């Protein structure tokens, strides 16, 4: 080192480059990558198209729900204490509810933001330029994940607020504090859920060489979990715990338990159960409810938020764990990759 310093004396240059002020608090480059990715996402067509799709369908669903609700409200005259939440969960014959659209379409946004994260940089030839800058290599993947997460969070929060505003306008009702908190929790769960798809897409983009291949893989997984997983789990449950006598409660229970527990392997079903519990305080159990369990319960009484959260705590943990596992796998794969591996 000292010998190098000595040689510098004959070539005076701008201050020692290592001493330059770098933003990022010990993670040089993270902020730069994050800002760049964020700008790319927000101005990119992918984000516009997909968030447009989610927002349009979401608002359409909420609008239809508001119409249905105001009819019911007018007829019943008695106020459902959680009518504002119904805005998000009520479907009509023609249109599924808002939550359905978020559960199905929002993952696409996560996939769109992540599927070419790493292999896109490789195929453009920008990755080798990127890694030769004085930044830690993980700043690249971390920055990409965080930027995607920020976009997703903004989009989902904006969507929930937008639908809420629509409800205020159409129903003329304001949400109570509890409803507000439940909506915030819904927002949080949705962000974690979409972040799972983002990290899955990033994992694909790290492992697969072609951007097309990683997009298709992520989409195939999305299709499987959104549509086919439920059917498949039903079939497996039928095979493992067949119901020969529909009147035998033990058999039926066993079958239901199998189906439910298998279903919880799927992030989509985990998410749907969590949302159902959060937005519908009447939900008291996610499995079959036996008569002996409801003895003494006040019929129709809603669960407080704390109890609803307790009910879906395993779901939240599992979703978060899935997200972390996917991201960790992508992170490790990326850190171990040879830059010129392909």
């Amino acid at each position: 080192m000292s010998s190098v310093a000595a040689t510098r004396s004959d070539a005076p240059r701008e201050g020692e480059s290592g001493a330059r002020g770098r933003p990022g608090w010990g993670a040089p480059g993270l902020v730069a990558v994050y800002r760049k990715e964020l700008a790319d996402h927000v101005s990119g067509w992918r984000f516009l198209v997909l968030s447009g799709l989610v927002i349009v369908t979401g608002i359409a669903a909420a609008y239809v729900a508001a119409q249905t609700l105001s009819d019911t409200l007018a007829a019943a005259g008695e106020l459902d204490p959680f009518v504002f939440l119904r805005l998000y969960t009520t479907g009509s014959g023609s249109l599924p509810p808002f939550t359905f659209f978020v559960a199905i379409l929002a993952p696409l946004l996560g996939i769109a933001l992540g599927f070419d994260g790493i292999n896109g940089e490789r195929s453009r030839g920008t990755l080798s330029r990127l890694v030769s800058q004085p930044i830690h290599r993980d700043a690249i993947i971390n920055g990409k994940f965080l930027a995607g997460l920020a976009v997703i969070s903004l989009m989902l929060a904006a969507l929930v607020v937008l639908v809420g505003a629509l409800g205020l306008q159409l129903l003329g009702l304001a949400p109570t504090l509890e409803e507000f908190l439940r909506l915030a929790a819904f927002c949080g769960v949705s962000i974690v859920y979409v972040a799972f798809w983002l990290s899955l897409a990033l994992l694909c983009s790290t492992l697969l060489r072609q951007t097309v291949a990683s997009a298709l893989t992520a989409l195939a997984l999305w299709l499987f979990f959104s549509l086919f997983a439920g059917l498949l789990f039903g079939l497996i449950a039928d095979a493992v715990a067949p119901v020969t006598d529909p009147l035998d409660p033990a058999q039926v229970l066993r079958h239901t338990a199998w189906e439910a527990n298998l279903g919880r392997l799927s992030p989509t079903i985990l998410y749907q159960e969590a949302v159902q519990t959060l937005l519908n305080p009447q939900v008291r159990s996610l499995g079959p409810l036996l008569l002996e369990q409801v003895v003494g319960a006040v019929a129709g009484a809603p669960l407080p938020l704390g109890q609803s959260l307790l009910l879906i705590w395993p779901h939240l943990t599992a979703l978060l764990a899935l997200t972390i596992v996917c991201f960790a796998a992508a992170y490790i794969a990326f850190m171990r990759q040879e830059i010129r591996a392909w």
Partner: protein
Amino acid sequence: MNTFASSPSSAPAPEAPAASADGARAWGETAQAPAAPLVNGQVRPPVIEARGLSKRYGQHWAVRDLDLQIHEGEIFGLLGPNGAGKTTTILMLLGLTDPTSGTARVLGRDPWREALAVKASVGYLPENVGFYDDLTGRKNLLYTARLNGLPEAEARERIQELLETVGLAHAADRPVRVYSRGMRQRLGLADVLVKSPRIVILDEPTLGIDPAGIREILDLIARLAREERVTILISSHLLHQVQQICHRVGIFVGGRLIAHGSVGQLSQQLAGGAPLVVDVEVEAKADTARARELLQRVEGVSGVDTEPEAGRLQVRCSRDVRAALARTLLENGIGLVGLAVHTYGLDDIYHRYFQGGDAGEQRGGNAIRRPA
């Protein structure tokens, strides 16, 4: 002349005692003698140093026992066919891949363990450099500046200077998608220089560019070496182009550095003991045999080879006896049309060394002629 604010011109250029007989041709005004590692009589430590550097992929040694020293201010050309291990060497010097054995030191640091410090002062232009196509040239450079932690205002100023230097100021605000290959390469050079590096590593900088573009790029590189006072390592399989601006070259074949030195030194090695060969061409082909007899008797001549069908002779001599040769021929009435000291060009060098290597790997085969 110096357009770079951050590169004070007070620093003396690394002038070296001229060894003009080294055979390296001048490239415009960029001709420069090989940089000697001597400054004020002191030996400078090398800025890039490799000792026994090796890299193995599976059973295949991509680089084997590389010993190399590159000194400050030098332009070093790493020449060799594709797949010879040039890029692997570069990646090891940058700390982008870890050596299987041996050590590398860049500016006195271990690139694998102190990657950030090394990367902060080493600019790397990868082969097939890519940019974000939707961003403008300027924004691409700005991103690099941010990754290097340059303050925004300083970065903008420097980027403007660099864009002017590489001749892209007019296209700075157009998206890179519309850039030609040569423009991308020049943008790549600007990108490498954003961080004001002390060492610049260029991997195949002339690949896929037309001759005029190559000329521009090489000119630019040589000028940057002078004005920015950086050490440059160029890897290429197109020796012809690169030798023109290199002070020293290393020939890399099959993972091994089989020869290095200035083109002149390599030429001497190739001449193998016989100090001087003079090419003589006579007017009438019939005179060739007689000329040979006459020339063999000239003092200092050790041997003469002939090519009677071409009227050419190669005279091996212990010293420069060209005048005596000319006089002898003219006095005996033999028309002399050509007389020149035979120099071994990089062609010969390349060919000679590559015969030992994987000949099938040779690209740009049109650049390789057999030695006469």
